[in-house]
């Protein structure tokens, strides 16, 4: 996909995410320079703020990749990763990740061994209209706000 078209699509999705009130004090855009969107997500259950990097290159031919990164942009260690309902997020062996934000509409979801489209019959093509970036942002925002992710 031509980067300019992808950038335009991403811009509209971020505008729609604002209309969904995905962004607030606890879930705020730190920077938005295509193809990377950085969002700060505050835990409501722990004294922690997580930095999420949305790699939206080639969106929406590909879903966004969402990773938890440190201030230097490096993926964080296990001890710095958010929790999923007091437990650990699953690992992603094929991507070499000890944990990943396992969510439909996110790039790593479709490359996980349990969700490979060749096994499930459901890939990004089936989810693209259901889970656009605006809905993914709103969903992640809600999960941090209601404490499911913390």
């Amino acid at each position: 996909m031509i980067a300019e078209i992808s950038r335009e699509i991403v811009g509209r999705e971020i505008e729609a995410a604002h209309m969904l009130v995905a962004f607030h004090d606890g879930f705020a855009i730190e920077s938005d320079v295509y193809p990377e969107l950085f969002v700060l997500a505050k835990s409501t259950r722990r004294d922690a703020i997580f930095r999420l990097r949305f790699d939206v290159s080639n969106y929406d031919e590909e879903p966004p990749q969402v990773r938890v990164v440190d201030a230097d942009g490096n993926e964080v260690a296990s001890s710095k990763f958010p929790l999923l309902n007091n437990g650990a997020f699953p690992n992603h062996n094929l991507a070499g990740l000890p944990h990943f934000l396992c969510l439909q509409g996110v790039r790593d979801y479709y490359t996980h061994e349990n969700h490979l489209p060749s096994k499930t019959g459901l890939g990004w093509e089936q989810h693209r209209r259901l889970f656009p970036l605006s809905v993914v942002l709103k969903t992640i925002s809600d999960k941090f706000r209601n404490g499911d992710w913390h």
Partner: protein
Amino acid sequence: MERQREEAVVPETIVEQFGDEAAAAPQPEAGDKRKHDVTIKLSSGADHSFAYRGDELVGKLLADAVKYFGDHKQLDPNGQYKLVSNGSDLNVAQTLDQAGVKPGDVLLLTTQAKPTDG
């Protein structure tokens, strides 16, 4: 006891549920009778202005919007959608007045589906 045939018919889309004028008859005794415009927008950036009375149901407006954007190949008319105003989902069973929709408002038409995790 044999159930009536109508009870077995479950509306599959918002257009089937609210697209029929008779099924969504406005409440005549209440609400603003004047036509006003609201703009409905898709996350793709497409938008369109719809003229409605305040006493018409949100569901009717949603059905008309889905049909319009479906006819223009901008969404799948068989999908499940909702209207969102200022971050809140509008109740399809309320009138636009009851839902707090004001003339000139911009509403977002988006998917009802939520991605699941884990």
